[in-house]
């Protein structure tokens, strides 16, 4: 049985464990129908031209983990940003771990999707927001919606901000030979609210993991959301991340994606601007080697006038790795005075690495400033020589230049400890130790 059939038949089993009379369940039923119709995306589709899910579909993934496994904090501490105090929402093999988590209902809600979906007190919000910005036509998003049950639920009321950043950590223990996870997150920032989220997926063994995650973010008027994705998983972990952002006027949403690991990573990042004077920022650093594959697929839909969007993606590719960047800026007829900028710079280190990039503009308004730039190149020989002539070994000199290359993206990280952490991961990835921090 292939994975699609397995998932569709698992849905019946899934229905046994949930309340099928819940209005949310109608959404799930619709979603599974759409997935059944569309199936897994193939390379024949333009959006998946450079990324194939074929090999994943051959693996016999467990859809429901059988038993829970407890983990000690000390064993997984390194995956947290433990230098600062944070709220934590931790899932082990898709199941919430209250022991490792720290949630709150103090003025703001930082808790679980499972309770938001089932408890009556959240019903109104779920009706208003759940599956409202996600693309109901997209097959993998539908698949996630069908099995949506658990994940992070964050609700920040008007003029509020949580006391500390929020970490969402998904751990896979390798309890199953191969496991498929479908976390579903809902993040709502009401008017003038503010929050910071760090999300990480981590597999602890070499067993296969396939995560198909959907995150919906709603930023109301004047809200400010910072979302950091840290992707440094091991080589048997695959991730399809679908993030949908709905922004209202004057809101600011920044998503940073740091892709350093994983077998196959696909980031679908979709911004919908439904108000004026919105600022959307997408930045990413990708450093790959081995046979890793990372695909960044971004969409910014400028549907209202006077908005801005900034995209800046840097990639460094070694070994037999493949990097894909597909950025799309869509400017509606009424979205005059749009300022959209898109940049994608890449460095190829080895002859076997590949980069495919397609920065795309679709513009229907005439009074706009839209530009994109895209480069593929190498480290500057002169700059390397300059550093070497000042006593810096070649390897360190190269690393230094790559730091500088990625620094534009790191600069806008607003949690200093996270910045340090990322810097360290980069140094590690480049195989050098630098006696300073950038």
């Amino acid at each position, binding site marked *: 049985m292939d994975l699609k059939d397995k998932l569709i038949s698992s849905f019946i089993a899934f229905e046994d464990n949930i309340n099928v009379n819940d209005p949310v369940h109608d959404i799930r039923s619709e979603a599974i129908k759409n997935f059944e119709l569309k199936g897994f995306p193939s390379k024949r589709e333009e959006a998946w031209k450079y990324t194939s899910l074929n090999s994943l579909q051959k693996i016999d993934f467990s859809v429901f983990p059988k038993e829970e496994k407890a983990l000690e904090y000390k064993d997984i501490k390194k995956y947290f940003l433990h230098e600062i105090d944070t709220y934590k929402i931790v899932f082990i093999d898709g199941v919430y771990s209250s022991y490792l988590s720290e949630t709150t209902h103090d003025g703001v809600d930082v808790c679980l999707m499972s309770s938001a979906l089932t408890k009556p007190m959240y019903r109104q919000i779920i009706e208003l927001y759940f599956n409202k910005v996600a693309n109901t036509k997209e097959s993998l998003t539908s698949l996630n919606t069908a099995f949506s049950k658990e994940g992070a639920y964050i609700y920040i009321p008007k003029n509020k901000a949580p006391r500390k950043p929020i970490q969402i950590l998904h751990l896979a223990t390798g309890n199953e030979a191969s496991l498929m996870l479908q976390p579903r997150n809902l993040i709502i920032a009401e008017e003038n609210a503010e929050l910071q989220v760090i999300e990480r997926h981590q597999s602890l063994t070499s067993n296969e993991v396939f995560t198909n995650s959907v995150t919906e973010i709603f930023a109301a008027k004047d809200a400010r959301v910072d979302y950091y994705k840290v992707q440094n998983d091991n080589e048997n972990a695959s991730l399809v991340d679908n993030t949908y952002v709905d922004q209202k006027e004057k809101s600011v949403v920044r998503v940073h994606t740091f892709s350093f690991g994983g077998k196959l990573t696909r980031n679908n990042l979709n911004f919908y601007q439904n108000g004026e004077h919105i600022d959307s920022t997408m930045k990413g650093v990708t450093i790959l080697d081995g046979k890793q594959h990372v695909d960044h697929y971004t969409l910014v839909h400028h549907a209202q006038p006077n908005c801005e969007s900034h995209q800046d993606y840097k990639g460094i590719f070694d070994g037999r790795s493949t990097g894909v960047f597909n950025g799309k800026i869509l400017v509606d007829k009424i979205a005059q005075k749009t300022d959209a900028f898109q940049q994608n710079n890449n460095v*190829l*280190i080895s002859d076997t690495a*590949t980069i495919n*990039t397609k920065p795309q*503009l679709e*513009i229907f308004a*005439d009074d*706009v400033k839209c530009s994109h730039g895209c480069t*593929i*190149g190498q480290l500057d020989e002169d700059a390397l020589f300059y550093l070497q002539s000042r006593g810096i070994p070649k390897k360190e000199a190269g690393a230094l230049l790559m730091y500088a290359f990625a620094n534009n993206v790191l600069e806008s990280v607003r949690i200093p400890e996270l910045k340090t952490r990322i810097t360290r991961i980069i140094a590690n990835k480049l195989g050098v130790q630098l006696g300073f921090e950038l």
Partner: protein
Amino acid sequence: MAYTEEELKKELETKEYEYGFYTDIESDTLPKGLNEDIVIAISKKKEEPEWMTEWRLDAFREWQKMKEPEWANVHYQKPDFQDISYYSAPNKKPKYNSLDEVDPELLDTFKKLGISLDEQKKLAGVAVDVVMDSVSVATTFKKTLAEKGIIFCSISEAIQEHPELVKKYIGSVVPKRDNFYAALNSAVFSDGSFCYIPKGVRCPMELSTYFRINQAGTGQFERTLVIADEGSYVSYLEGCTAPMRDENQLHAAVVELIALDDAEIKYSTVQNWFPGDKEGKGGVFNFVTKRGLCENNAKISWTQVETGSAVTWKYPSCVLKGNNSIGEFYSIAVTNNFQQADTGTKMIHIGNNTRSTIISKGISAGKSQNSYRGLVKVNSRAKNARNFSQCDSLLMGNECGAHTFPYIEAQNKSAQIEHEATTSKIGEDQIFYCNQRGIDTEKAIALIVNGFSKEVLNKLPMEFAVEAQKLLEISLEGSVG
């Protein structure tokens, strides 16, 4: 302000197609429809050798298995391929020795088009192989060219007289099964131009052909083959106008360029086919496959000014096979009213030290859609490949669209690729600046559009540059964005 946007809009909408006239010449036309018999009939009419007939039939069989491509960013009523006559040749077809013998009506047509043969003969020094509804009618300057060993004739003549060259190169750059329209063209192509420049020869004049679609309901399937042997140089011009028609006319040409070691081919096009009226009715469908192959140290340069056609689907490409080869693409695409253009290029880097440059300028007005679609591919063995791409779009009015779809695929670490694209309108401050200096708005717009397109216009040969500038003026002069 003397000249307002409304006035411009009005002018653009009412601007009639200048070359919309119909020449009444008797034509020898095959019945409508397409099957193996028609393919054989075409081949027979052209008195082709058996291998050519077989080649056509092979292409036809491939074509039958293919589906029309749908990926382009254009929408149109698909042509009914059984409702097209695949062969039409001007009936009176004596071989002329001098221009005096040519049907005066035909000469008159050329005069209206501004390509008076004798004038060009004297003044411009351009040898024109005029293709009117698929069959070569006049070939001039043959003698001068023959002295240098240059072969410049219609492709049907070349099949008769130089079969070894045609056999060797036809379909070598654009294979029969390359795509739907290339396969169709391979099966039914009626005529076209053939050009061979021998080793080390620098072609003394700009070679040019003018294509016209004349007979109502006739698809035009041109086949062009240009071969530049080692160390040679040729500049080739192609210009197009078509009479006004209510039904859509299909044009599916194939152009193949072969630049052998150290050779250089410069191919320039001005395309001004009937774009349809202001309601988007009629107009030519232009589905063209153009591709060039560069051997070592060779260079191919495509320059195009696309102002006509209802639907354009065209990607002049370069396969940079040889080491140190160079590919260039300079394009201006102007769309107005309901025109749709999906055009761009492909640069395939295979050899070492290959270089390519892409400069694309898109100007959209009215309710038109203008897309740039390009591919830059660097093979894993192509060392030190270099590419620079620039795609700029200018939008006039808020009912048109500009789109950019650049595909970049690099598999070699020594590749250096840069791509940049911008979209803008004509700034009011720019206009104001000009007004301030006594330049009226209309002239200022012309100035700005001209400046916007300058990089490409500069690449055109003199004769074409003038024509191209005129074309730009027709559709866009005096626009306040």
